[in-house]
């Protein structure tokens, strides 16, 4: 459908994807009405620092915001904050707001993001139990980040481990509970899990794997301890829950837009309704290079889909889809991930984890599909190119640190 005549565009959700769509629409020359409606009170801001530098107090709130308030005025973007959307009426091309009123659209962008999974145990709503998703969550958590306090983190994913690193550096007593036999089990290989476990233990974090949380104990409505299924009691002044996220797809689903663990979109970020687009955590997209569809929970994905959306609405050529990439900061470690490692049939480790500078390459049928690089930008950056090229790689060469990544990439790309 040609939407180049659109003169009313509504973006639901002011996260990374929504903010990118706004920017790319204006940058791409769209001069019509542009409205952002979001349920948070704040203008669009960066989420990654919430579990890293901002949580640690090393970054001011002002620096979280993508743009100052004046930018939205200068760009003639209407911002309707603290306002959830109630429903989408596709027949009448209008969005109903929870507080009354509606917004008509010619093109609609759903960038509603995701929400934390709720801890399914007794005591999960006690005071002192927190998710870590929004600025408001961090504002509640930070006053408790005081040396000597006891923090229990439920879930050893990236968010949980990043928070554990910050809390330890601030002097808290930290215990991480993980149901799986190893940390980061859902997202990476055993070699990386072992590395991060070793690292966190060396920093004094207590990590309990195969730990089944039974319930949280409280006193006077405030959390006091985590109780495991085997009866172990772990004292807690504060509990952080990081057990994954769920896509906010309900608005789309209730409007009859196709969803399946995310709002289904094509390569242009277009949903089953040609006037409606979905971008970021809430969307399930073609992962063209990997021959499947899926949701990606990342900054790169949000930016890319924001750009794809704007290009499709404005009738511009589709921007090139980049290799998926992610990062995590813990202590003085920078983990950079390129590609998607599921389904690898071979793993090659380059360098020595004991040096805290190494990379794990994931191959399938002799081609590189992903890398986890610790303090190793060359391995990360070369891999982004190698993955998208589909070039065959000699595993022996990848693991040989006497050959530079530049030379390995040049050899593979020339072959």
């Amino acid at each position, binding site marked *: 459908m040609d939407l180049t005549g659109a003169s009313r565009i509504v973006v639901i959700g002011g996260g990374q994807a929504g903010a990118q769509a706004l920017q790319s629409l204006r940058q791409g020359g769209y001069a019509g009405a542009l409205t952002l409606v979001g349920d948070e009170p704040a203008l669009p801001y960066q989420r990654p620092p919430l579990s890293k530098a901002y949580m640690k107090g090393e970054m001011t709130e002002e620096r979280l915001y993508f743009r100052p308030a004046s930018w939205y005025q200068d760009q003639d973007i209407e911002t309707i904050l603290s306002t959830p959307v109630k429903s989408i009426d596709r027949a009448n091309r209008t969005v109903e707001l929870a507080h009354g009123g509606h917004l008509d659209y010619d093109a609609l962008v759903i960038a509603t993001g995701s929400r934390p999974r709720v801890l399914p145990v007794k005591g999960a709503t006690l005071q002192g139990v927190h998710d870590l998703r929004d600025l408001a969550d961090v504002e509640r958590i930070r006053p408790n980040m005081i040396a000597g306090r006891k923090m229990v983190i439920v879930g050893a994913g990236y968010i949980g481990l990043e928070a554990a690193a910050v809390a330890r550096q601030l002097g808290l007593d930290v215990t991480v509970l993980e149901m799986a036999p190893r940390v980061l089990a859902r997202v990476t290989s055993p070699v990386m899990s072992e590395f991060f476990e070793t690292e966190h233990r060396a920093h004094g974090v207590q990590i309990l794997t195969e730990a089944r949380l039974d319930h949280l104990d409280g006193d006077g409505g405030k959390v006091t301890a985590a109780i495991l299924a085997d009866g172990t009691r772990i004292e807690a002044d504060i509990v952080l829950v990081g057990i994954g996220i769920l896509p906010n797809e309900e608005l789309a689903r209730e409007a009859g837009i196709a969803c399946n663990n995310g709002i289904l979109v094509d390569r242009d970020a277009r949903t089953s309704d040609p006037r409606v687009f979905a971008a970021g955590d809430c969307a399930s997209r073609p992962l063209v290079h990997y021959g499947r569809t899926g949701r990606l929970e990342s*900054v790169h994905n949000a930016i890319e889909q924001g750009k794809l959306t704007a290009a499709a609405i404005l009738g511009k050529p589709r921007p090139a889809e980049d290799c998926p990439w992610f990062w995590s900061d813990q202590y003085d470690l920078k983990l950079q991930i390129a590609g998607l490692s599921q389904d690898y049939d071979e793993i090659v480790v380059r360098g020595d984890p004991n040096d805290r500078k190494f990379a794990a390459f994931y191959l399938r049928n002799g081609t590189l599909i992903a890398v986890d690089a610790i303090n190793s930008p060359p391995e990360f950056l070369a891999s982004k190119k190698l993955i998208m090229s589909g070039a065959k790689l000699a595993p022996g060469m990848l693991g040989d640190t006497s050959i530079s990544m*530049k030379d390995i990439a040049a050899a593979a790309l020339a072959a």
Partner: protein
Amino acid sequence: MTKIIYVDNDGTERVVEASNGESVMEAAVKNSIPGIDADCGGACACATCHVYVDAAFMDKVGEQQEMEKSMLDFAENVRENSRLSCQITISDSLDGLKVTTPESQH
């Protein structure tokens, strides 16, 4: 406020009044300077805020850290005066700093 001049690939100059303490990347993003993507928001994780620093300021923009050095090693069209703009913190001594953005960040 400190004056920073961004020159794009076509030679067009844009002057920004930036605050001390923010990075050259942040000042660019907040003022909609084209040619600086800064996908990671300044975490030195993506190498999409590459700029060329004017010769007169090369000794004032500070030393490169190891991480930045190795990121730049893989950027396109790297020159002697290449820097990641997220790693340059604005201060009074950078008043009048001129940086040029490359043709592409990818």
